[in-house]
Protein backbone atom coordinates (compact mmCIF):
# COMPACT_ATOMS: atom_id res chain seq x y z
CA UNK A 1 0.00 0.00 0.00
CA UNK A 2 1.62 3.27 -1.11
CA UNK A 3 1.22 6.60 0.63
CA UNK A 4 -1.25 8.93 -1.05
CA UNK A 5 0.18 11.93 -2.84
CA UNK A 6 -0.52 15.18 -1.06
CA UNK A 7 -1.58 17.42 -3.90
CA UNK A 8 -1.03 21.15 -4.21
CA UNK A 9 -1.62 23.56 -7.01
CA UNK A 10 -0.90 27.24 -7.56
CA UNK A 11 -3.76 29.44 -8.62
CA UNK A 12 -4.41 33.08 -9.38
CA UNK A 13 -7.29 35.14 -8.08
CA UNK A 14 -8.24 38.55 -9.39
CA UNK A 15 -11.16 40.94 -9.42
CA UNK A 16 -11.97 44.30 -10.93
CA UNK A 17 -12.68 47.24 -8.64
CA UNK A 18 -13.38 50.97 -8.74
CA UNK A 19 -11.91 53.58 -6.44
CA UNK A 20 -13.26 57.06 -5.73
CA UNK A 21 -10.73 59.46 -4.30
CA UNK A 22 -13.05 61.97 -2.65
CA UNK A 23 -12.59 65.75 -2.63
CA UNK A 24 -9.23 65.90 -0.80
CA UNK A 25 -7.09 63.19 -2.36
CA UNK A 26 -8.92 63.88 -5.62
CA UNK A 27 -7.78 67.51 -5.57
CA UNK A 28 -4.18 66.42 -4.90
CA UNK A 29 -4.25 64.04 -7.85
CA UNK A 30 -5.91 66.58 -10.13
CA UNK A 31 -3.13 68.97 -9.12
CA UNK A 32 -0.49 66.46 -10.17
CA UNK A 33 -2.16 66.18 -13.54
CA UNK A 34 -1.68 69.97 -13.85
CA UNK A 35 1.91 69.62 -12.57
CA UNK A 36 1.16 71.28 -9.26
CA UNK A 37 1.62 69.82 -5.81
CA UNK A 38 -0.93 70.58 -3.11
CA UNK A 39 -0.76 69.98 0.59
CA UNK A 40 -3.35 70.69 3.22
CA UNK A 41 -3.12 72.77 6.40
CA UNK A 42 -3.65 70.82 9.62
CA UNK A 43 -5.15 72.20 12.82
CA UNK A 44 -1.70 72.98 14.24
CA UNK A 45 -0.74 74.96 11.14
CA UNK A 46 1.48 72.32 9.58
CA UNK A 47 1.18 71.74 5.84
CA UNK A 48 0.80 68.01 5.14
CA UNK A 49 1.77 66.60 1.73
CA UNK A 50 0.13 64.51 0.34
CA UNK A 51 -3.00 65.96 1.96
CA UNK A 52 -5.01 64.03 4.54
CA UNK A 53 -8.80 64.13 4.66
CA UNK A 54 -8.91 64.40 8.46
CA UNK A 55 -6.67 66.07 11.00
CA UNK A 56 -4.24 63.62 12.58
CA UNK A 57 -4.66 65.26 16.01
CA UNK A 58 -8.22 66.53 16.23
CA UNK A 59 -9.92 64.28 13.62
CA UNK A 60 -11.65 67.35 12.17
CA UNK A 61 -12.16 67.48 8.41
CA UNK A 62 -9.41 69.45 6.65
CA UNK A 63 -10.06 71.76 3.71
CA UNK A 64 -7.37 74.47 3.38
CA UNK A 65 -5.22 73.47 0.42
CA UNK A 66 -1.73 74.96 0.17
CA UNK A 67 0.36 74.72 -2.97
CA UNK A 68 3.94 73.69 -2.23
CA UNK A 69 7.09 73.81 -4.35
CA UNK A 70 8.36 71.06 -6.61
CA UNK A 71 11.73 71.50 -4.95
CA UNK A 72 12.63 70.31 -1.49
CA UNK A 73 15.25 68.72 0.73
CA UNK A 74 16.08 65.12 1.53
CA UNK A 75 15.33 64.24 5.16
CA UNK A 76 16.62 60.66 4.96
CA UNK A 77 17.23 58.09 2.26
CA UNK A 78 17.97 54.50 1.41
CA UNK A 79 20.23 53.65 -1.56
CA UNK A 80 19.15 50.97 -4.01
CA UNK A 81 22.40 49.81 -5.64
CA UNK A 82 20.89 47.10 -7.82
CA UNK A 83 17.41 48.04 -9.06
CA UNK A 84 15.11 45.17 -9.94
CA UNK A 85 12.38 44.97 -12.53
CA UNK A 86 9.68 46.28 -10.18
CA UNK A 87 11.64 49.38 -9.20
CA UNK A 88 10.69 52.73 -10.73
CA UNK A 89 14.17 53.49 -12.10
CA UNK A 90 16.60 51.33 -14.07
CA UNK A 91 19.78 52.92 -12.68
CA UNK A 92 20.82 52.87 -9.01
CA UNK A 93 18.65 55.34 -7.08
CA UNK A 94 17.49 56.27 -3.58
CA UNK A 95 14.18 55.95 -1.83
CA UNK A 96 13.98 59.21 0.05
CA UNK A 97 11.86 61.13 2.52
CA UNK A 98 11.60 64.52 0.83
CA UNK A 99 10.30 67.65 2.52
CA UNK A 100 9.07 69.94 -0.22
CA UNK A 101 9.49 73.68 0.27
CA UNK A 102 6.32 74.92 1.94
CA UNK A 103 5.54 71.51 3.48
CA UNK A 104 6.10 70.54 7.10
CA UNK A 105 6.21 66.78 6.68
CA UNK A 106 8.24 64.69 4.24
CA UNK A 107 6.77 62.36 1.67
CA UNK A 108 8.46 59.32 0.23
CA UNK A 109 9.59 59.24 -3.38
CA UNK A 110 12.60 58.13 -5.43
CA UNK A 111 15.65 60.22 -6.25
CA UNK A 112 17.92 59.67 -9.23
CA UNK A 113 21.52 60.37 -8.29
CA UNK A 114 24.89 59.57 -9.83
CA UNK A 115 26.14 57.85 -6.65
CA UNK A 116 25.19 57.32 -3.05
CA UNK A 117 27.94 59.74 -2.06
CA UNK A 118 26.05 62.56 -3.76
CA UNK A 119 23.14 62.22 -1.31
CA UNK A 120 22.92 63.87 2.08
CA UNK A 121 20.35 64.99 4.56
CA UNK A 122 19.47 68.43 3.39
CA UNK A 123 20.44 67.77 -0.22
CA UNK A 124 18.22 69.76 -2.57
CA UNK A 125 16.02 67.87 -5.01
CA UNK A 126 13.68 68.79 -7.83
CA UNK A 127 10.63 66.90 -9.11
CA UNK A 128 10.84 65.45 -12.61
CA UNK A 129 7.39 65.16 -14.17
CA UNK A 130 6.31 62.24 -16.30
CA UNK A 131 6.06 63.08 -20.02
CA UNK A 132 2.30 62.70 -19.76
CA UNK A 133 0.49 63.46 -16.48
CA UNK A 134 -2.88 61.81 -15.75
CA UNK A 135 -3.65 62.37 -12.07
CA UNK A 136 -1.58 59.51 -10.67
CA UNK A 137 1.10 59.72 -7.97
CA UNK A 138 3.45 58.48 -10.70
CA UNK A 139 2.92 61.80 -12.51
CA UNK A 140 6.00 62.75 -10.50
CA UNK A 141 8.34 60.38 -12.32
CA UNK A 142 11.06 60.85 -9.72
CA UNK A 143 13.21 63.53 -8.11
CA UNK A 144 16.70 64.54 -9.18
CA UNK A 145 19.40 66.47 -7.39
CA UNK A 146 18.89 70.19 -7.92
CA UNK A 147 21.77 72.28 -9.23
CA UNK A 148 23.82 73.89 -6.49
CA UNK A 149 22.84 71.30 -3.90
CA UNK A 150 25.40 70.38 -1.30
Amino acid at each position, binding site marked *: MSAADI*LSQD*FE*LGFTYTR*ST*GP*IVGRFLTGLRDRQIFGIRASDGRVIVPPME*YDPDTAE*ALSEFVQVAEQGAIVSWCWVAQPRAAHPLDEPFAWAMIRLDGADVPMIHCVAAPAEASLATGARVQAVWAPETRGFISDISHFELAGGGN
Partner: protein
Amino acid sequence: MSTLAAVVGIGQTQYKTRRGDVSIAGLVREAAVNALQDAGLEWDDIEAVILGKAPDMFEGVIMPESYLTDALGCNGKPMLRVHTAGSVGGSTALVAASHVQSGSFKRVLTVTFEKQSESNAMWALSTPQPFSVHLNAGAGGYFAPIIREYMRRSGAPRDVGIKVAVKDRLHGARNPLAHLQLPNITMQEVEESMMLWDPLRFLEACPSSDGACAMVIAAEELVHESPKPPAWIRGVAMRSEPTMYAGRDEVNPQAGRDCAADVYRQAGITDPRRDLDCAEVYVPFSWYEPMWLENLGFAAQGEGWKLTMAGATSLDEGGDIPWNCSGGVLSSNPIGASGMIRFAEAARQVRGDAGAHQVPGAKLALGHAYGGGAQFFAMWVVGADKP
Protein backbone atom coordinates in the same frame (compact mmCIF):
# COMPACT_ATOMS: atom_id res chain seq x y z
CA MET B 1 -22.57 41.85 31.95
CA SER B 2 -22.58 44.19 34.86
CA THR B 3 -22.87 47.65 33.34
CA LEU B 4 -26.08 48.81 31.71
CA ALA B 5 -25.53 50.28 28.25
CA ALA B 6 -27.68 52.21 25.82
CA VAL B 7 -27.59 53.56 22.30
CA VAL B 8 -27.36 57.34 22.66
CA GLY B 9 -26.59 58.29 19.06
CA ILE B 10 -27.38 56.93 15.62
CA GLY B 11 -26.02 58.12 12.29
CA GLN B 12 -26.59 56.83 8.80
CA THR B 13 -25.79 57.91 5.30
CA GLN B 14 -28.39 57.90 2.62
CA TYR B 15 -28.18 54.55 0.86
CA LYS B 16 -27.53 54.85 -2.86
CA THR B 17 -26.26 52.90 -5.84
CA ARG B 18 -23.09 54.94 -5.99
CA ARG B 19 -21.42 57.51 -3.77
CA GLY B 20 -18.71 58.56 -6.20
CA ASP B 21 -18.39 61.93 -4.46
CA VAL B 22 -16.63 60.52 -1.41
CA SER B 23 -13.79 58.16 -0.61
CA ILE B 24 -14.42 55.13 1.60
CA ALA B 25 -13.12 57.27 4.46
CA GLY B 26 -15.55 60.04 3.55
CA LEU B 27 -18.44 57.57 3.56
CA VAL B 28 -17.79 56.12 7.02
CA ARG B 29 -17.02 59.58 8.30
CA GLU B 30 -20.46 60.84 7.28
CA ALA B 31 -22.25 58.19 9.35
CA ALA B 32 -19.90 58.67 12.31
CA VAL B 33 -20.37 62.46 12.35
CA ASN B 34 -24.15 62.01 12.13
CA ALA B 35 -24.05 59.63 15.12
CA LEU B 36 -21.92 62.03 17.17
CA GLN B 37 -24.28 64.90 16.35
CA ASP B 38 -27.28 62.77 17.27
CA ALA B 39 -25.59 61.98 20.59
CA GLY B 40 -24.58 65.62 21.17
CA LEU B 41 -20.92 64.56 21.48
CA GLU B 42 -17.47 65.33 20.08
CA TRP B 43 -14.63 63.05 19.03
CA ASP B 44 -12.93 63.50 22.41
CA ASP B 45 -15.99 62.02 24.13
CA ILE B 46 -15.37 58.64 22.46
CA GLU B 47 -13.04 56.17 24.18
CA ALA B 48 -12.83 53.37 21.60
CA VAL B 49 -13.94 52.63 18.04
CA ILE B 50 -15.31 49.33 16.75
CA LEU B 51 -15.43 48.99 12.96
CA GLY B 52 -17.09 46.28 10.92
CA LYS B 53 -17.41 45.43 7.26
CA ALA B 54 -17.79 42.42 5.00
CA PRO B 55 -14.72 40.63 3.55
CA ASP B 56 -11.77 42.82 2.54
CA MET B 57 -11.90 41.23 -0.89
CA PHE B 58 -15.22 42.96 -1.58
CA GLU B 59 -13.57 46.38 -2.05
CA GLY B 60 -10.06 44.99 -2.44
CA VAL B 61 -8.80 47.19 0.42
CA ILE B 62 -6.93 44.94 2.79
CA MET B 63 -7.43 45.85 6.46
CA PRO B 64 -9.44 49.02 5.75
CA GLU B 65 -9.58 49.68 9.47
CA SER B 66 -5.97 50.84 9.46
CA TYR B 67 -6.69 53.32 6.67
CA LEU B 68 -9.84 54.58 8.42
CA THR B 69 -8.35 55.45 11.80
CA ASP B 70 -7.99 59.18 11.08
CA ALA B 71 -11.47 59.41 9.54
CA LEU B 72 -12.97 57.88 12.69
CA GLY B 73 -11.00 59.87 15.24
CA CYS B 74 -9.17 56.77 16.52
CA ASN B 75 -5.90 58.57 17.16
CA GLY B 76 -4.72 57.47 20.60
CA LYS B 77 -7.70 55.18 21.13
CA PRO B 78 -8.24 51.44 20.84
CA MET B 79 -9.81 50.41 17.54
CA LEU B 80 -10.97 46.95 16.62
CA ARG B 81 -12.21 45.45 13.37
CA VAL B 82 -14.97 42.86 13.41
CA HIS B 83 -15.91 40.48 10.64
CA THR B 84 -18.61 37.80 10.57
CA ALA B 85 -19.77 37.82 6.93
CA GLY B 86 -23.24 39.35 6.35
CA SER B 87 -24.03 39.40 10.05
CA VAL B 88 -21.03 41.65 10.68
CA GLY B 89 -23.11 44.79 11.17
CA GLY B 90 -24.92 43.09 14.04
CA SER B 91 -21.90 41.43 15.60
CA THR B 92 -19.98 44.72 15.38
CA ALA B 93 -22.71 46.42 17.41
CA LEU B 94 -22.56 43.56 19.92
CA VAL B 95 -18.78 43.83 20.28
CA ALA B 96 -19.19 47.56 20.84
CA ALA B 97 -21.93 46.93 23.40
CA SER B 98 -19.75 44.40 25.23
CA HIS B 99 -16.93 46.94 25.44
CA VAL B 100 -19.30 49.10 27.47
CA GLN B 101 -21.21 46.38 29.34
CA SER B 102 -17.92 44.89 30.52
CA GLY B 103 -17.03 48.19 32.17
CA SER B 104 -13.92 48.57 30.01
CA PHE B 105 -15.11 51.73 28.27
CA LYS B 106 -17.75 54.32 29.05
CA ARG B 107 -18.54 55.43 25.51
CA VAL B 108 -17.81 53.65 22.25
CA LEU B 109 -18.35 54.59 18.61
CA THR B 110 -19.20 51.74 16.28
CA VAL B 111 -19.29 52.06 12.50
CA THR B 112 -19.97 49.70 9.61
CA PHE B 113 -19.96 50.27 5.87
CA GLU B 114 -19.87 48.90 2.38
CA LYS B 115 -19.15 50.71 -0.86
CA GLN B 116 -20.62 48.20 -3.25
CA SER B 117 -20.17 50.51 -6.26
CA GLU B 118 -16.41 50.12 -5.82
CA SER B 119 -16.48 46.49 -4.84
CA ASN B 120 -16.87 43.08 -6.38
CA ALA B 121 -19.19 41.51 -3.84
CA MET B 122 -20.78 39.13 -6.31
CA TRP B 123 -17.64 37.23 -7.29
CA ALA B 124 -15.46 37.92 -4.27
CA LEU B 125 -18.11 36.17 -2.16
CA SER B 126 -17.08 32.69 -3.24
CA THR B 127 -13.69 32.44 -4.86
CA PRO B 128 -12.66 29.62 -7.19
CA GLN B 129 -10.25 27.20 -5.54
CA PRO B 130 -8.14 24.44 -7.05
CA PHE B 131 -9.50 20.87 -6.80
CA SER B 132 -13.06 22.21 -6.53
CA VAL B 133 -15.76 23.09 -9.00
CA HIS B 134 -16.59 26.79 -8.83
CA LEU B 135 -20.33 27.15 -8.54
CA ASN B 136 -20.50 30.85 -9.47
CA ALA B 137 -23.77 30.84 -7.57
CA GLY B 138 -23.73 34.10 -5.61
CA ALA B 139 -25.86 34.53 -2.51
CA GLY B 140 -29.21 34.17 -4.27
CA GLY B 141 -28.19 30.93 -5.93
CA TYR B 142 -27.05 29.57 -2.60
CA PHE B 143 -30.25 30.41 -0.75
CA ALA B 144 -32.82 29.60 -3.47
CA PRO B 145 -32.76 25.81 -2.94
CA ILE B 146 -33.14 26.34 0.82
CA ILE B 147 -36.18 28.50 0.13
CA ARG B 148 -37.61 25.79 -2.12
CA GLU B 149 -37.28 23.34 0.74
CA TYR B 150 -39.13 25.78 3.00
CA MET B 151 -41.93 26.02 0.42
CA ARG B 152 -42.14 22.22 0.24
CA ARG B 153 -42.26 21.77 3.99
CA SER B 154 -44.69 24.56 4.77
CA GLY B 155 -46.92 24.32 1.75
CA ALA B 156 -46.73 28.10 1.51
CA PRO B 157 -48.45 29.61 -1.53
CA ARG B 158 -46.10 30.81 -4.26
CA ASP B 159 -46.79 34.52 -3.82
CA VAL B 160 -45.52 34.90 -0.23
CA GLY B 161 -42.17 36.19 -1.45
CA ILE B 162 -43.90 38.65 -3.74
CA LYS B 163 -45.93 39.97 -0.82
CA VAL B 164 -42.77 40.52 1.28
CA ALA B 165 -41.06 42.28 -1.63
CA VAL B 166 -43.96 44.72 -1.94
CA LYS B 167 -44.41 45.20 1.81
CA ASP B 168 -40.75 46.05 2.51
CA ARG B 169 -40.56 48.46 -0.45
CA LEU B 170 -43.70 50.25 0.77
CA HIS B 171 -42.01 50.50 4.16
CA GLY B 172 -38.87 51.78 2.44
CA ALA B 173 -40.87 54.50 0.72
CA ARG B 174 -41.54 55.92 4.21
CA ASN B 175 -37.80 56.07 4.93
CA PRO B 176 -35.93 58.86 3.12
CA LEU B 177 -32.61 57.08 3.71
CA ALA B 178 -33.73 53.90 1.92
CA HIS B 179 -31.99 53.16 -1.37
CA LEU B 180 -34.98 51.84 -3.31
CA GLN B 181 -37.88 54.30 -3.39
CA LEU B 182 -40.78 52.37 -4.93
CA PRO B 183 -43.98 53.84 -3.44
CA ASN B 184 -46.12 52.49 -6.27
CA ILE B 185 -44.76 48.95 -6.43
CA THR B 186 -47.36 46.23 -7.06
CA MET B 187 -47.54 42.46 -6.65
CA GLN B 188 -47.87 42.20 -10.44
CA GLU B 189 -44.73 44.24 -11.00
CA VAL B 190 -42.74 41.98 -8.68
CA GLU B 191 -44.18 38.85 -10.28
CA GLU B 192 -43.27 40.06 -13.77
CA SER B 193 -39.69 40.97 -12.84
CA MET B 194 -36.98 38.64 -14.11
CA MET B 195 -36.60 35.29 -12.40
CA LEU B 196 -33.03 35.23 -11.09
CA TRP B 197 -32.82 32.12 -8.92
CA ASP B 198 -36.14 30.31 -8.94
CA PRO B 199 -38.22 31.15 -6.88
CA LEU B 200 -36.45 34.50 -6.37
CA ARG B 201 -37.26 37.23 -8.85
CA PHE B 202 -35.24 40.42 -9.40
CA LEU B 203 -37.59 42.47 -7.22
CA GLU B 204 -37.44 39.82 -4.48
CA ALA B 205 -33.71 40.43 -4.02
CA CYS B 206 -31.86 43.18 -2.18
CA PRO B 207 -30.16 46.01 -4.10
CA SER B 208 -26.42 46.75 -4.09
CA SER B 209 -25.87 49.89 -2.05
CA ASP B 210 -23.18 52.26 -0.87
CA GLY B 211 -23.62 53.39 2.70
CA ALA B 212 -22.52 53.43 6.30
CA CYS B 213 -24.21 53.22 9.68
CA ALA B 214 -22.85 54.27 13.06
CA MET B 215 -23.94 54.24 16.68
CA VAL B 216 -22.66 55.65 19.94
CA ILE B 217 -23.11 53.27 22.87
CA ALA B 218 -22.74 54.68 26.37
CA ALA B 219 -22.59 53.31 29.89
CA GLU B 220 -25.56 54.08 32.15
CA GLU B 221 -23.70 56.84 34.03
CA LEU B 222 -23.13 58.83 30.81
CA VAL B 223 -26.46 58.23 29.10
CA HIS B 224 -27.94 61.46 30.47
CA GLU B 225 -25.24 63.51 28.72
CA SER B 226 -26.89 62.88 25.36
CA PRO B 227 -30.06 64.85 24.67
CA LYS B 228 -32.31 62.31 22.95
CA PRO B 229 -34.02 59.30 24.55
CA PRO B 230 -31.70 56.28 24.85
CA ALA B 231 -32.37 52.79 23.57
CA TRP B 232 -31.46 50.52 26.47
CA ILE B 233 -29.72 47.32 25.46
CA ARG B 234 -31.83 44.58 27.03
CA GLY B 235 -30.26 41.49 25.52
CA VAL B 236 -27.35 40.54 23.26
CA ALA B 237 -26.56 37.20 21.64
CA MET B 238 -24.43 35.66 18.90
CA ARG B 239 -24.35 32.07 17.65
CA SER B 240 -22.70 30.27 14.77
CA GLU B 241 -22.66 26.83 13.19
CA PRO B 242 -20.75 25.18 10.32
CA THR B 243 -22.05 25.91 6.82
CA MET B 244 -22.23 22.28 5.88
CA TYR B 245 -22.64 19.15 7.92
CA ALA B 246 -24.93 16.20 7.64
CA GLY B 247 -28.15 16.86 9.49
CA ARG B 248 -27.88 20.63 9.52
CA ASP B 249 -31.29 22.22 9.12
CA GLU B 250 -30.56 25.03 6.69
CA VAL B 251 -34.21 26.08 6.56
CA ASN B 252 -34.46 26.58 10.31
CA PRO B 253 -30.87 26.75 11.62
CA GLN B 254 -30.29 25.66 15.21
CA ALA B 255 -27.88 28.57 15.75
CA GLY B 256 -30.64 31.05 14.91
CA ARG B 257 -33.10 29.40 17.26
CA ASP B 258 -30.54 29.26 20.07
CA CYS B 259 -29.50 32.86 19.52
CA ALA B 260 -33.13 34.02 19.69
CA ALA B 261 -33.83 31.97 22.83
CA ASP B 262 -30.78 33.51 24.50
CA VAL B 263 -31.63 37.11 23.65
CA TYR B 264 -35.28 36.66 24.62
CA ARG B 265 -34.32 35.14 27.98
CA GLN B 266 -32.14 38.16 28.78
CA ALA B 267 -34.89 40.58 27.78
CA GLY B 268 -37.63 38.67 29.60
CA ILE B 269 -39.46 37.87 26.37
CA THR B 270 -41.57 34.70 26.41
CA ASP B 271 -43.76 35.35 23.36
CA PRO B 272 -41.86 37.47 20.82
CA ARG B 273 -44.92 38.31 18.73
CA ARG B 274 -46.77 39.56 21.79
CA ASP B 275 -43.89 41.06 23.79
CA LEU B 276 -42.02 42.88 21.01
CA ASP B 277 -43.49 45.93 19.27
CA CYS B 278 -41.52 45.53 16.05
CA ALA B 279 -38.46 43.86 14.59
CA GLU B 280 -35.74 44.69 12.10
CA VAL B 281 -34.72 41.34 10.68
CA TYR B 282 -32.12 40.55 8.03
CA VAL B 283 -34.23 39.64 4.99
CA PRO B 284 -32.07 40.05 1.85
CA PHE B 285 -34.32 37.72 -0.16
CA SER B 286 -38.09 37.94 0.22
CA TRP B 287 -38.76 34.41 1.43
CA TYR B 288 -36.49 34.85 4.40
CA GLU B 289 -39.27 36.77 6.19
CA PRO B 290 -41.56 33.74 6.66
CA MET B 291 -38.54 31.51 7.32
CA TRP B 292 -37.17 33.79 10.03
CA LEU B 293 -40.66 34.36 11.50
CA GLU B 294 -40.49 30.67 12.37
CA ASN B 295 -36.79 30.53 13.26
CA LEU B 296 -37.21 33.48 15.65
CA GLY B 297 -40.34 32.09 17.27
CA PHE B 298 -42.88 34.62 15.98
CA ALA B 299 -44.83 31.74 14.42
CA ALA B 300 -44.99 27.98 14.79
CA GLN B 301 -43.11 25.87 12.28
CA GLY B 302 -44.78 25.98 8.90
CA GLU B 303 -46.93 28.95 9.90
CA GLY B 304 -44.63 31.95 9.28
CA TRP B 305 -46.02 32.67 5.83
CA LYS B 306 -49.51 33.04 7.30
CA LEU B 307 -48.40 36.08 9.31
CA THR B 308 -46.89 37.61 6.20
CA MET B 309 -50.00 37.00 4.09
CA ALA B 310 -52.31 38.29 6.84
CA GLY B 311 -50.41 41.58 6.95
CA ALA B 312 -49.21 41.00 10.53
CA THR B 313 -45.72 42.26 9.58
CA SER B 314 -46.95 45.26 7.58
CA LEU B 315 -47.02 48.78 8.93
CA ASP B 316 -49.32 49.80 6.08
CA GLU B 317 -51.82 47.07 6.91
CA GLY B 318 -51.74 47.86 10.63
CA GLY B 319 -50.07 44.58 11.50
CA ASP B 320 -49.52 43.72 15.15
CA ILE B 321 -45.81 42.94 14.69
CA PRO B 322 -44.34 45.11 11.92
CA TRP B 323 -41.10 43.76 10.47
CA ASN B 324 -38.56 45.97 8.71
CA CYS B 325 -40.40 49.27 8.91
CA SER B 326 -37.25 50.96 7.53
CA GLY B 327 -37.62 48.99 4.31
CA GLY B 328 -35.11 46.41 5.46
CA VAL B 329 -32.29 44.83 3.50
CA LEU B 330 -34.68 44.52 0.55
CA SER B 331 -34.65 48.33 0.29
CA SER B 332 -30.98 49.07 1.16
CA ASN B 333 -28.01 46.73 1.25
CA PRO B 334 -24.58 48.17 1.98
CA ILE B 335 -23.59 44.63 3.05
CA GLY B 336 -21.20 45.30 5.92
CA ALA B 337 -23.59 47.90 7.35
CA SER B 338 -26.85 46.04 6.73
CA GLY B 339 -26.84 44.19 10.06
CA MET B 340 -26.04 47.34 11.99
CA ILE B 341 -28.84 49.18 10.19
CA ARG B 342 -31.22 46.53 11.58
CA PHE B 343 -29.85 47.10 15.09
CA ALA B 344 -29.91 50.89 14.69
CA GLU B 345 -33.42 50.94 13.23
CA ALA B 346 -34.67 48.82 16.14
CA ALA B 347 -33.11 51.44 18.43
CA ARG B 348 -34.69 54.29 16.47
CA GLN B 349 -38.10 52.71 17.00
CA VAL B 350 -37.81 52.53 20.79
CA ARG B 351 -36.33 56.03 20.89
CA GLY B 352 -39.48 57.19 19.10
CA ASP B 353 -37.23 58.67 16.44
CA ALA B 354 -38.11 56.67 13.33
CA GLY B 355 -39.99 59.41 11.47
CA ALA B 356 -42.60 58.26 8.96
CA HIS B 357 -41.83 54.59 9.58
CA GLN B 358 -42.28 54.84 13.35
CA VAL B 359 -44.38 52.14 14.99
CA PRO B 360 -46.57 54.20 17.32
CA GLY B 361 -45.53 53.77 20.94
CA ALA B 362 -42.84 51.13 20.26
CA LYS B 363 -41.13 50.18 23.53
CA LEU B 364 -39.31 46.94 22.76
CA ALA B 365 -37.69 45.95 19.46
CA LEU B 366 -35.53 43.18 18.04
CA GLY B 367 -32.52 43.79 15.79
CA HIS B 368 -31.29 40.73 13.87
CA ALA B 369 -28.56 39.89 11.39
CA TYR B 370 -27.41 36.70 9.73
CA GLY B 371 -24.45 35.93 7.54
CA GLY B 372 -22.43 33.30 5.75
CA GLY B 373 -24.52 30.33 4.61
CA ALA B 374 -27.12 31.41 7.18
CA GLN B 375 -24.63 30.24 9.80
CA PHE B 376 -23.71 33.39 11.79
CA PHE B 377 -26.40 35.05 13.86
CA ALA B 378 -26.33 38.27 15.86
CA MET B 379 -29.28 39.76 17.74
CA TRP B 380 -30.13 42.38 20.26
CA VAL B 381 -33.25 43.55 21.99
CA VAL B 382 -33.49 47.25 22.80
CA GLY B 383 -36.07 48.96 24.92
CA ALA B 384 -37.35 52.42 25.76
CA ASP B 385 -37.43 51.49 29.43
CA LYS B 386 -34.41 50.93 31.59
CA PRO B 387 -34.35 47.29 32.70
